[in-house]
């Protein structure tokens, strides 16, 4: 019965997909000529959203109300400059149903990269079909079979093992990043204040963030932490060595206060960072001061406290990476815990040939999650029994590990999901008012924005999550499980979907803006240099038509992962299998609703 239902659902979804797909090849005849007066002003188009029928030809009569702007249509090669005091006419043929995004193409101020508008070409079946697919995925994922827990040790490949156990290897990873870091701070401090032309903003928030979210996190979890230059000077000073294993530490080596031995400091930092996200990501000076500030805090904590306390408890990006690294298909673990039980030295934790674990993890003591593992490979160098494995594993394996689940991690997961939604609205949406509110243009407006933002990510979303947990317990028959425990446990099921949402968001931010990278490489400080002859490149990414497909695929894969994880978590929290089957429904519905919200936002 169940299998047949799944089959029918799959057929329906494929049928919907076929319908959508045929929509791409049909050219409706005799569309209308639509004329739209469009005014542009920092940092919005008005109207920001235009709805037409497939086959129409939209002619925009564009006028600027303040300064010079541009008008370019993503993926169409249409580009016009809108000088103030002069009307420009641009015609955009709307052949296919879906969404066409247009954006400002002449740098007009800090929020220029996020100055977008959209043409919705009806009948837009994307949200409907995407929502249908999400439902099917939700259904299949909550019913499907469990998967294997196979591991493959990468260290059995000798050259990799050799490389990872060389002491200079980590330094070789850090050094190029330190070079970029130095240039970023310098460019932010003395370079141009125009974010789109400054190496610091472009390299941190476009290049680094893009690589981090699209590749490093989903494939290798916290691997960034092994090459991060921010804590490096502090660590070198505290160890009194850059490469070698030294036994004469320089710092005071205090223990970190017990009260703060959690991720709440990182949560606070992350909250501030995302609240001021629009300011931080568009102002070179703010970016430079942020990075420099983090490096100084790291330096101070290294000199005062033991090990890498900064990375373990304080770093806001560390909090983000820690939560998402649980979904990554890479783990560093003890190979055989029986060997560890026999081991007297416990060199992975106490230090030996290598430094003791910088984040107080204990691979030999059964470390089971990636959350706090920086992949620095010190344990690999320390272990006298060669008993560590760097393994490929199924995605999301750590999310199923019940031991060690904590409220601080759960709240970071919720914050990240809420932020992905909020930033998609603010940065990718056509609503200019919220951009200017978030841009600190006036104190009352910013306070309103802050209330709205914090209300969404700290109150509304967690409340919905709590409701989901409560409904799940109720559906399962109201067992004696504490609701607080379900709240925390279920938050781990959000992680795959929220990572996928960040990837979809990042794709939409990075792809259309890629051309800034060669530009700032030639002129890192915006001083009119032209080192490589690429300072005026205006090449844009042409196959932007793949963007909606990629976003849809990412969100559906994330949804699938989330529900699969959710199923295991619900099952293990609520005990017997039948109760769990009923209890998973509210969680699956919640996840489908979130995925659908992202889909409508991106494609609707």
């Amino acid at each position, binding site marked *: 019965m169940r299998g047949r239902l799944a089959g029918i659902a799959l057929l329906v979804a494929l049928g919907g997909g076929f319908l959508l797909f045929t929509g791409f090849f049909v050219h409706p005849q005799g569309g209308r000529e639509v004329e739209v007066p469009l005014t542009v002003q920092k940092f919005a188009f008005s109207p920001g959203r235009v709805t037409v029928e497939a086959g129409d030809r939209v002619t925009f009569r564009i006028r600027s109300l303040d300064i*010079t702007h541009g008008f370019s249509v993503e993926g169409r090669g249409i580009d016009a400059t809108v000088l103030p005091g002069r009307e420009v006419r641009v015609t955009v043929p709307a052949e296919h149903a879906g969404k066409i995004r247009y954006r400002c193409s002449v740098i007009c101020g800090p929020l220029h990269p996020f100055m977008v508008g959209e043409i919705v070409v009806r009948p837009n079946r994307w949200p409907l079909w995407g929502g249908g697919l999400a439902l099917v995925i939700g259904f299949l994922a909550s019913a499907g079979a469990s998967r294997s827990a196979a591991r493959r040790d990468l260290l059995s490949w000798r050259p990799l093992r050799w490389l990872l156990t060389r002491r200079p290897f980590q330094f070789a990873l850090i050094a190029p990043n330190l*070079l970029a870091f130095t240039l970023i701070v310098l460019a932010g401090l003395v370079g141009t204040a125009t974010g789109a032309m400054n190496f610091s903003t472009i390299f941190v928030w476009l290049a680094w963030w893009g690589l981090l979210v699209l590749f490093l996190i989903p494939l290798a979890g916290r691997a960034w932490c092994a090459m991060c230059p921010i804590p490096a000077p502090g660590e070198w000073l505290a160890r009194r060595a850059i*490469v070698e294993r030294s036994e004469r530490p320089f710092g005071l080596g205090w223990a970190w206060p017990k009260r703060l031995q959690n991720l709440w400091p990182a949560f606070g930092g992350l909250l501030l960072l995302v609240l001021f996200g629009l300011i931080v990501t568009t102002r070179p000076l703010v970016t430079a001061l942020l990075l420099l500030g983090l490096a100084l805090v790291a330096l101070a904590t290294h000199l005062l406290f033991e090990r890498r306390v900064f990375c373990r408890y304080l770093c806001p990006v560390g909090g983000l990476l820690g939560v998402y690294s649980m979904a990554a298909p890479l783990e560093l673990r003890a190979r055989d815990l029986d060997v560890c039980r026999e081991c007297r030295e416990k060199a992975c934790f106490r230090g030996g040939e290598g430094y003791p674990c910088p984040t107080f993890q204990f691979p030999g003591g059964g470390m089971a999650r990636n959350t706090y593992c920086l992949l620095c490979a010190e344990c690999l160098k320390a272990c006298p029994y060669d008993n560590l494995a760097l393994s490929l594993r199924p995605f999301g394996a750590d999310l199923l590990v019940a031991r060690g689940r904590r409220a601080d991690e759960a709240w970071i997961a919720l914050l990240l999901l809420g932020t992905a939604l909020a930033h998609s609205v603010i940065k990718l949406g056509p609503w200019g008012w919220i951009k200017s509110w978030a841009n600190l243009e006036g104190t009352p407006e910013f306070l309103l924005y802050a209330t709205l933002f914090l209300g969404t990510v700290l109150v509304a979303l967690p409340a919905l999550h709590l409701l989901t947990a409560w409904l799940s317990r109720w559906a399962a028959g109201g067992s004696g499980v504490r609701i607080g425990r379900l709240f925390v446990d279920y938050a781990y099921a959000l992680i795959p979907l929220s990572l996928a949402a960040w990837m979809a968001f990042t794709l939409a931010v990075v792809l259309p803006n890629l051309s800034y990278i060669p530009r700032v490489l030639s002129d890192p400080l915006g001083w009119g*240099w032209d080192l490589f002859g690429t300072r005026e490149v205006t090449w844009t990414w042409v196959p932007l038509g793949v963007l909606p497909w990629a976003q849809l695929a990412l969100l559906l894969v994330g949804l699938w992962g989330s529900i699969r994880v959710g199923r295991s978590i619900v099952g293990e929290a609520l005990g017997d299998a039948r109760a769990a089957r009923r209890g998973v429904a509210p969680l699956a519905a919640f996840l489908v609703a979130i995925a659908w919200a992202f889909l409508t936002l991106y494609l609707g």
Partner: protein
Amino acid sequence: MKRVERTAFALVLAILIGVPAAVFSYQALRDREPREIFVVARTVEHGGWSPARIVVRRGQKVRLRILAEDVTHGFQLLHFGVNAGAIKTGTAKVVEFTPDRAGEFPFYCSVRCSPLHMALMGTLVVEP
């Protein structure tokens, strides 16, 4: 200290000192270019023309490279028939002219760039 440690230390120092040193010396080298005068246009709110006063000699050819730094600007020096048109943000335009009169001449931004656009003015001083 072992050799690898010394090398690493030297590399770190080279990065931390070398990057700023390279940036500033490259900029200083560019400024010595005698053939042209580099002018940066910013809105009045962010500092206006830089330099706002350009001194040249009568009868000698002048070459200005004008960079629009924050938003799109223009450059107009009507007394010598110079009009660069719109200079898009991040791009630069070069204008050339030979002043045949001595005196002080105003130059303007010719593309509306901010509420204080009309105040975005500079002076060209032609010495006899």
